[in-house]
């Protein structure tokens, strides 16, 4: 666990750096705001409408599908990390086909899931 101390050290230093940069930019430069400067930038014309509008639901669906497959990746990583050790040596070598087959079944299920999402047209963006 002691190896995680540098993570804390660099977190503190990095936050300090970010804070210094933000404060520096606040005080180093002259600040002469005008109405035009403080408007949302829209290529020089008066802003049309507001930016707080509803957005396409496609972004939402992609995030949902991402969650499903990201969990797949999370399950795969620990399996991958010990796979070689289990399969090529060690006390559980006689179970290597089970160890391999189980994950293959899991991946086939997820592959079917991808095909389903695909066929449902969630991945089509130009409809």
């Amino acid at each position: 666990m002691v190896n995680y101390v540098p993570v804390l050290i660099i977190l503190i230093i990095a936050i300090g750096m970010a804070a210094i940069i933000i404060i520096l930019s606040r005080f180093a430069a002259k600040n002469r705001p005008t109405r035009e400067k403080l408007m949302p930038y829209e290529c020089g014309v008066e802003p049309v409408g507001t930016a707080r509008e509803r957005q396409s639901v496609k972004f939402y669906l992609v995030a949902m599908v991402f969650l499903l497959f990201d969990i797949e990746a999370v399950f795969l990583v620990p399996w991958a990390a010990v796979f070689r050790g289990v399969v090529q040596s060690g006390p559980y070598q006689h179970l290597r086909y089970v160890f391999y087959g189980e994950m293959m079944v899991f991946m086939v299920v997820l592959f079917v899931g991808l095909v389903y999402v695909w066929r449902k047209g969630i991945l089509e963006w130009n409809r």
Partner: protein
Amino acid sequence: MTNLLLEWIIKTLVILLILVTAVAYVTLMERKVMAWIQMRVGPNRVGLGKFKLWGLMQPLADGLKMIFKEDIIPLQANQWLYVLAPAISLVPALMTFIVIPYGSEITLFGRTIELHVTRLNVGLLYVLALTSVGVYGIVLAGWSSNNKYSLMGGLRSSAQMISYELALGLSIVSVVLYSGSLDLVEIVDAQRGFHGLAWNIFHYPLLILVFVIFYIASLAETNRTPFDLPEADSELVAGYHTEYSSMKFVMFQMAEYLNLITASSIATTLFFGGWNGPSVGRLPFLGPVYFTIKVLALIFLAMWIRYTVPRFRYDQLMRFGWKFLLPASIVNIIISSTVILFTR
């Protein structure tokens, strides 16, 4: 314990100093490479007094200029999030580098110093997790600016990054299958043999495919052309950082280039043997040199791609990520694990 703590703090500070300098000079390198590819000269004026030094002082001049630019917070922006967003994307970008090994160990002042700040047994996951946190900064910047272009940029960025993160994560699984560890130090140590040339990519030819997937996905993760839709200059002005000026803009730029450096370093570590190279066993100081050369070569490759390939259209981008890279990386895992199962 105090010694160890001191060593960590010094190493962290040195790494941060090197990283910040590297970011400054990678921006100069980008401008130079762009200029050469477009048959121009590039920045060549800023030097020390009479000495032009091929424009080597350009980053310094840019930095000074940016500090004295007016810092604008738009009236309609969400003030707190607007100020916080660049910090959220910069801090994780700075934090990734501590787990990457850049050499074996050297003896300095009678002390053996290992050339990595720390080793985590989940090092690879740590890097992946931090690169995902960076998305929050971009999304928050896009939303809090209260500007349509920024909002579109932020949304595109989040959709794109989560799509390509899958391909990135799954292509890393293939490497983990071969190396059997998530500890980056261990992954590099495993590539030591054969005069320091037993790099993963030579040892397991299948990883060439994985590297291509990883590299494309990491270009998308770092928002570089051909995947720079979040900041597409010609349609979204500058995307999520349209409203940012002064040092806040610099923070986004720093985060972007830091992510590029991190992605190249991870690619080096996973596929190209990290700091390994000829006669590095006898001369340990060559480790950081080899590491830097490899990372710079990969950064150059990214720049080369940037000025050669046009930008994707959005639907092409999503189609490529979901319908090609994702299935390809899943198939790669299946093939890799089968190969490992049947070889001794």
